């Protein structure tokens, strides 16, 4: 879990958050482009989870493994659940759910980096 990777995830999720936020303001439902954008982020998140578990298994540093694993598993679940819950609401509020999900992914990617570096509480 390197800094550039965390920044990449943070940035990708931020793009989805802003995009979904704009659609919410414009009173639009979750549409296909937004869905595909979220899917791209999800691919990056799954790759991060796999890489994260490998890194956790091979590192000789003292990382809080339980918390780190929990965040890795959580971060891949948030967008699929959020998009599913949001897309089944046929109003702008469903798009707002995608905003929330993307914001959560941003926070989680930041926390992942902190936990990996041992700089968290």
């Amino acid at each position, binding site marked *: 879990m390197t800094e550039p990777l965390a920044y990449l995830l943070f940035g990708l999720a931020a793009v989805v958050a802003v995009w979904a936020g704009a659609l919410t303001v414009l009173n639009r439902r979750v549409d296909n482009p937004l869905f595909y954008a979220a899917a791209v982020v999800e691919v990056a998140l799954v790759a991060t989870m796999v890489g994260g578990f490998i890194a956790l298994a091979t590192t000789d540093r003292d990382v809080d493994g*339980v918390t780190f694993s*929990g965040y890795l598993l959580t971060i891949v679940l948030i967008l699929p659940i959020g998009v599913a819950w949001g897309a089944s609401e046929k109003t702008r*509020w469903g798009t*707002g759910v995608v905003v929330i999900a993307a914001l959560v992914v941003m926070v989680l990617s930041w926390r992942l980096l902190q936990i990996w570096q041992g700089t968290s509480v």
Partner: protein
Amino acid sequence: MSDASTRSGPGRILVAVYAVFALAATARSSVQIGTDFDNAPLAYSLSAVAAAIYILATVALARGGRARPLAWAACTAEAVGVFTVGTLSIVASDHFPDATVWSVYGQGYGYVPAVLPFLGLAWLWRTREGHAG
């Protein structure tokens, strides 16, 4: 009998935010209680109570209908809890050596926990029976 009103429209977002806090509080209290309970038994027990209330509120708001009384109760308990624990964590800080979801009125979570119960109660009020939108 399930009515969609509490999970429709803005309620969609409300349920999503509640779900996030249910997850965050559950995960946090599980780790705290599982690894380090003796460090702060009071704080960690209250953390678990918070997690349970968030789960109840999430499910009750998502179901609506007959679960509405449960949603009222959960949001009320949540409001009482966040202000009780928030105050305790300040005046009795030696019992709260480690942060929980409700410490200092949810400071670690952008104070969202202090606002959320009132959004929940307001939403239940707005979607009450016989009230159009």
